[in-house]
C-alpha cells in the first residue's frame, strides 16, 4: 500500500511558515459596494476643488480669484450626490441619522458623516455667494447669498474639505484588511488623489470658460506638482505594502490600477503639462482639458481599484498573518 500525502489544513499554507486553517480567510470580506468608492471620488474631488478655489481667493491675483471661484460650483455639484451615495450603501438606509446621534471622532466613519454633513451646506453657501457675485442670482436670493461671510466659509470649508479628502483613506486603513492597513499611507494617497482631481476640476472649468493663459499655466504647474506628489506617495504606499499589494498590482485590478490610476491619473497629465508650457490659445486649452480629464478619471480608477482589490485582499490569509505577526 502506498502512502498518500494527506492534505493538511496547517503547515501547507503560504503564510510564511504560519500555515493556517486551510486557505480560509482570517478576516471578513467588506460588505461595501460601488457607492463607497464613488462617494470617496466625488467627495474628494469636491473638497479638492473647494480647497483650490479658496487658496486662490487668498493668494491669487484678481484674475485667478475670478476664475478659480468657479471651483465652488464644482464643489457644491460634486458634494450634493455624496450623502445619497453614502446613505444608499447602508444596510438600513432609513437610519442614516443614527450616525449623527453621537459625536465620536474616534470612529472615522462618524467623523466623516459629521464632516460631510457640515461641509456640504458650507460649499453650497459659498457657491451661492459666488453666483450672487457673478450676477447669476437675482432678487431676494441674491440678497440672501450676499449675506454669506465669504472668508469664514472659505476657512472653515477648507478645513472641513481637507478632513473629507483625507479621512476616507484613514477609514479604510483603520480596518484589518491587509491592502488597506499594512501601509499607514493610504490616507495620504487618497488626500493626494482628492487634491489633484479637485484642482484638475478647477482647470477643466477654467479652460472651458476661456481663462487667461497665465492662469492656465499656473494651474498646470499646480497640477504637475500634485501629480508628482501623488506618484511619490503611491510609490511609497506600494513599497510599504510589499507582497500585500499583490491583489492590486497583479491580477484583475492590475489594468485599472497601472493604466488607469497611475498611467492616466498621474503620468499622462504630467507629460501633457510639459507640452502646455510651449503652447498657447486653443492648443493650450485642449491640452489642459485633456490633462484634467485624465487626472479626474485616474482618481476614480485609483479609489475603485484600491477599494475592490482590498476586498480580495481580505481573503488573503497569508497577508492577514503578515499584518498580525508579532
Amino acid at each position: 500500500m502506498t502512502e498518500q500525502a494527506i492534505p493538511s489544513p496547517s503547515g501547507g499554507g503560504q503564510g510564511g511558515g504560519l500555515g493556517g486553517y486551510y486557505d480560509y480567510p482570517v478576516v471578513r470580506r467588506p460588505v461595501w459596494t460601488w457607492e463607497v468608492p464613488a462617494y470617496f471620488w466625488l467627495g474628494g474631488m469636491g473638497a479638492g476643488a473647494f480647497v483650490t478655489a479658496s487658496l486662490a481667493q487668498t493668494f491669487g491675483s484678481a484674475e485667478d480669484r475670478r476664475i478659480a471661484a468657479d471651483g465652488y460650483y464644482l464643489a457644491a455639484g460634486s458634494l450634493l450626490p455624496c450623502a445619497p451615495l453614502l446613505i444608499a450603501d447602508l444596510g438600513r438606509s432609513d437610519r442614516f441619522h443614527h450616525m449623527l446621534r453621537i459625536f465620536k471622532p474616534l470612529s472615522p466613519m462618524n467623523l466623516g458623516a459629521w464632516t460631510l454633513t457640515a461641509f456640504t451646506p458650507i460649499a453650497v453657501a459659498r457657491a451661492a455667494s459666488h453666483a450672487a457675485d457673478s450676477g447669476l442670482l437675482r432678487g431676494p436670493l441674491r440678497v440672501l447669498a450676499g449675506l454669506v461671510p465669504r472668508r469664514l466659509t472659505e476657512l472653515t470649508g477648507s478645513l472641513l474639505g481637507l478632513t473629507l479628502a483625507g479621512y476616507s483613506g484613514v477609514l479604510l486603513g483603520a480596518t484589518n484588511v491587509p491592502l488597506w492597513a499594512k501601509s499607514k499611507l493610504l490616507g495620504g494617497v487618497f488626500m493626494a488623489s482628492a487634491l489633484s482631481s479637485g484642482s484638475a476640476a478647477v482647470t477643466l472649468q477654467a479652460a472651458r470658460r476661456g481663462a487667461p493663459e497665465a492662469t492656465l499655466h499656473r494651474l498646470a504647474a499646480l497640477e504637475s506638482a500634485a501629480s508628482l506628489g501623488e506618484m511619490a506617495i503611491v510609490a511609497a504606499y506600494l513599497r510599504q505594502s510589499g507582497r500585500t499589494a499583490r491583489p492590486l498590482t497583479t491580477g484583475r485590478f492590475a489594468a485599472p490600477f497601472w493604466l488607469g490610476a497611475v498611467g492616466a491619473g498621474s503620468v499622462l497629465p504630467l507629460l501633457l503639462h510639459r507640452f502646455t508650457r510651449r503652447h498657447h490659445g486653443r492648443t493650450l486649452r485642449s491640452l489642459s482639458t485633456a490633462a484634467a480629464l485624465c487626472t479626474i478619471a485616474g482618481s476614480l480608477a485609483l479609489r475603485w481599484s484600491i477599494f475592490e482589490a482590498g476586498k480580495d485582499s481580505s481573503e488573503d490569509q497569508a497577508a492577514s498573518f503578515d499584518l498580525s505577526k508579532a
Partner: protein
Amino acid sequence: MIDGYKRLMNLEEPPAKKTAKGFFTDTSLCIGCKACEVACKQWNQLPADGFAITGKSYDNTGHLGATTWRHVQFIEQAKANGRRQEQRWLMMSDVCKHCANAACLEACPTGALVRTEFDTVYVQQDICNGCGFCVPACPFGVIDRVPKESTFEVGTAHKCTLCYDRLKDDMTPACAKSCPTASIQFGDVEELQVRARERLGELRARGESTARLYGMPEGKEAQEVGPLHAFFLLLDRPAAYNLPEVPRLPRKTMAERYGWSAAVGIGFAMVAALVFRGGRR
C-alpha cells in the same frame, strides 16, 4: 438639567456594572459534536446558512458570520513519524472574543455597539444602521452584516451576544449549556482565567508541550485588543486555528494615518499658495 435632558431624550440609566462574564473554550476537550452551533442557532433563532459542503473536512460551516455565532473547526494534522504518518484532529469551537478593547465597538459610528454590564460587547439592533465598518475592523473576522435581501434583521450587523438575554436572567449561554464535554466553560472571567492556568499546567505535565492559552492578559495577543473575555486553550500555534498572532486594534495606528494625510494636505496648500502668489504683481 441633565435629568431633564435624559427625560427629553428618553435616555435610560445604564444597568449597574456586574462581574465580567466570558467563555473559556478548552479545545483539548472538544469532540466536534457541534451541539454549540445548533444550540446557538436555536436559542438566538438564527436562520440556517444553507447546505453548503466545503469538501475539505467535516467543517461545513467554514467561518463565523452574521447568522453563525459559534463555529466548530476540524483541523486535520498529519506528521511523519519514521515511515508512518501520524494524524491528529484538533477541534475548536470559535466564537466572538468579546475583546477588552474591541475594534468593532471603536469603529461603530452610531453607538449601536456597546459594552454591557457584564463587560461583553453587544450590538443594539434598534440602533445599528448597517454601515458595515465593524466588519473589516474586527481582527478575528467575527462580526458581519446580514445581506439586504435576507429575511433576518435585514441589513444590520450581528455577532455573538454572549446570550445577553440569558445572562440578564442568570442563565448560562446556550452554547456552554449544551456542550457535553465542558470544552465551553462559562463564568466570571477572572475565575475562568485561574481555571485555564490550572488546566494548562495539567496538560503540560501530561506531555502536551504545544498546549497554550490564547487571550490571557499576559499573552502577546492581548497587546492591542486587550485580554479576550472569550479565550482559548489551544494545542498548536494560533495560526493553525486561523487566529492572528497579535490581533491589530486600528486605533493604535490612526494618529499616524491622519498625520500622513494631513502632511499631504499641507504640502499641497503650500505649493498652491506659492503658485498663486507667483501670479500676483
